[in-house]
């Protein structure tokens, strides 16, 4: 998504989500079974996105961001939304977070319709300025706990230190954000989100602004944290590699407007298998699904230079 679109989305976000009307279909879904039940019969989805169409307003027009997107996120999933710019993946995440009301379709979290932003879904943004600069690292992690009145000051401080320790920043508890590096700021944001113990953790390209080496390290740490805490994650990225490494399910979206192209199982891949042939094949497959017209570099097939879709230009 381009910077301009992001801003447009952001301005649409300011409008308070009006209360949705329907209360009829409230099939009370069972509480999610423990994450151990990965195989066998599928557990009830934690997040159910049903035929969601999203649009946002720019100064000139109303842009359709997604069209009839449906997917289910199961408890303890690491669910990745992947697609090129303009596929509405960030907009979709904002809708799940409650900043944007779907034009049609609905988003159910634990059987409850999403009506607005709330502390049961904490977002980790890409931008480093998501940490209020007037709060120390510890105060930052405590902030949502206090703001949502989840915990008292003392318990919030304890929990903040616990999760700061998990991301390896306990020594920086009293530092102000402007003294931290980009990677450390993102770690604080992740600790802050985890400390809230949300039903689902929403990450909007959290590592995109980091340098390549730091990004790799953060992916590793995120997977280790998941092994430890087993949170449910909805992760937006535009990097095929990152999607395959971080996710156990990858939803591919096609652009303009965003539509579901495929949903893949990538539970078998992690950073260790990065160079393996299977990994490369999966990356190639995703590449081909996302960009059917463009042959992957180095494998130009003469027969593909003129594809049937090019005919429309001749008509």
């Amino acid at each position, binding site marked *: 998504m381009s910077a301009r679109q992001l*801003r447009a989305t*952001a301005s649409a*976000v*300011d409008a308070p989500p009006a209360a949705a009307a329907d209360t009829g279909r409230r099939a009370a879904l069972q509480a999610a079974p423990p994450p151990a039940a990965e195989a066998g019969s599928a557990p009830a989805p934690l997040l159910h996105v049903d035929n969601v169409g999203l649009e946002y307003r720019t100064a000139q027009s109303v842009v359709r961001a997604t069209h009839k997107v449906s997917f289910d996120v199961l408890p303890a999933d690491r669910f990745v939304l992947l697609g090129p710019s303009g596929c509405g993946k960030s907009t979709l995440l*904002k809708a799940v*977070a409650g*900043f944007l009301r779907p034009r049609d379709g609905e988003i159910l979290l634990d059987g409850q319709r999403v009506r*607005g*932003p*709330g*502390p049961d*879904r*904490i*977002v980790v*943004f890409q*931008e480093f*300025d*998501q940490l*209020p*600069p*007037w709060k120390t690292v510890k105060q930052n992690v405590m*902030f*949502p706990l206090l*703001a*949502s009145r989840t915990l008292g000051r003392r318990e919030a401080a304890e929990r903040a230190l616990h999760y700061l320790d998990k991301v390896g920043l306990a020594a920086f508890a009293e530092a*102000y*954000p*402007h*003294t931290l590096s980009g990677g450390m700021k993102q770690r604080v944001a992740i600790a802050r989100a985890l400390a*809230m113990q949300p039903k689902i953790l929403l990450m909007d390209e959290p590592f995109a602004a980091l340098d390549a080496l730091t990004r790799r390290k953060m992916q590793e740490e995120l997977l280790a944290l998941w092994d430890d805490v087993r949170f449910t994650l909805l992760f937006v990225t535009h990097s095929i590699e990152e999607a395959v490494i971080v996710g156990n399910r990858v939803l591919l979206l096609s652009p303009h407007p965003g539509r579901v192209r495929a949903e893949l199982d990538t539970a078998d891949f992690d950073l260790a298998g990065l160079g393996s042939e299977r990994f490369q094949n999966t990356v190639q497959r995703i590449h081909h699904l996302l960009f059917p017209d463009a042959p992957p570099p180095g494998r130009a097939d003469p027969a593909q230079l003129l594809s049937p879709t090019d005919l429309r230009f001749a008509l």
Partner: protein
Amino acid sequence: MTTPTTALARRPEYERPLEPLDDLPAEIPLRLHQRLWQQGWLRKALVLAVLALLWEIAARWQNNDLLLPSFLQTAAAFFDGLVSGELFDRAGRSLLVLTKGYLIGIVAAFVLTTLAVSTQLGRDLLSTLTAMFNPLPAIALLPLALLWFGLGEGSLIFVLVHSVLWALAVNTYSGFLGVSETLRMGGRNYGLSGLRYVLQILVPAALPSILAGLRIGWAFAWRTLIAAELVFGASSGQGGLGWYIFQNRNELYTDRVFAGLVAVILIGLIVENLVFNVLERFTVRRWGMQRQA
């Protein structure tokens, strides 16, 4: 690729053991004059001293006490004023009125800007009112204020509120508009709304602009107050600093006029350096929202 012209010349690798740096000090302390020059207050004091010297020379050259008393004469008058307690008394009166007007102005500005960020009508109200009243000199409202509130504190407070309110409201509002989208979404994500959202997200995030507005508001209020006191002076014979200046001019005590002006300037400097600079050091500079000066 390896044609003779582009062939790489192979060079030997090497490793070096690092020798201890015994004789090289890790840090060299600055010389005394360098350290003194680092002190901002000292540099500013030097500027003031040079200005005072120029003043003294100009006054002696002019040689007319009624028009331009010298620096030393003014200092003596200022000292007399301090010793007799008159200057303290006058300045205290002025500052008391000023504080009242300033605080009311701040509250009013906060209410207006909070309305402006939460409703469209509030936005229109704020932008229309500031466009109308911000260019209007507070002192121009004084005749009207005198008509409404009579000779006394009420009129002064009215013009003071007018001088603080618009400058602060404009700055605060533009500060609110500049708060990053990520911080806003974060705050709403944690369930903040209404006044809690304004107080916990918008106000701290916009603090650099708010502080700038408070500074400007303070300067406007201070000069408005002195000017207003010059115009109608005392309520029941007890004026502030402006009245002190006006009275002494009438009696041709020019050195006391200068002493009064010095008091006005000094109070301005003290508030600027002690109140606002300290406030900034403990907030926006500590948080890295503003560069260290």
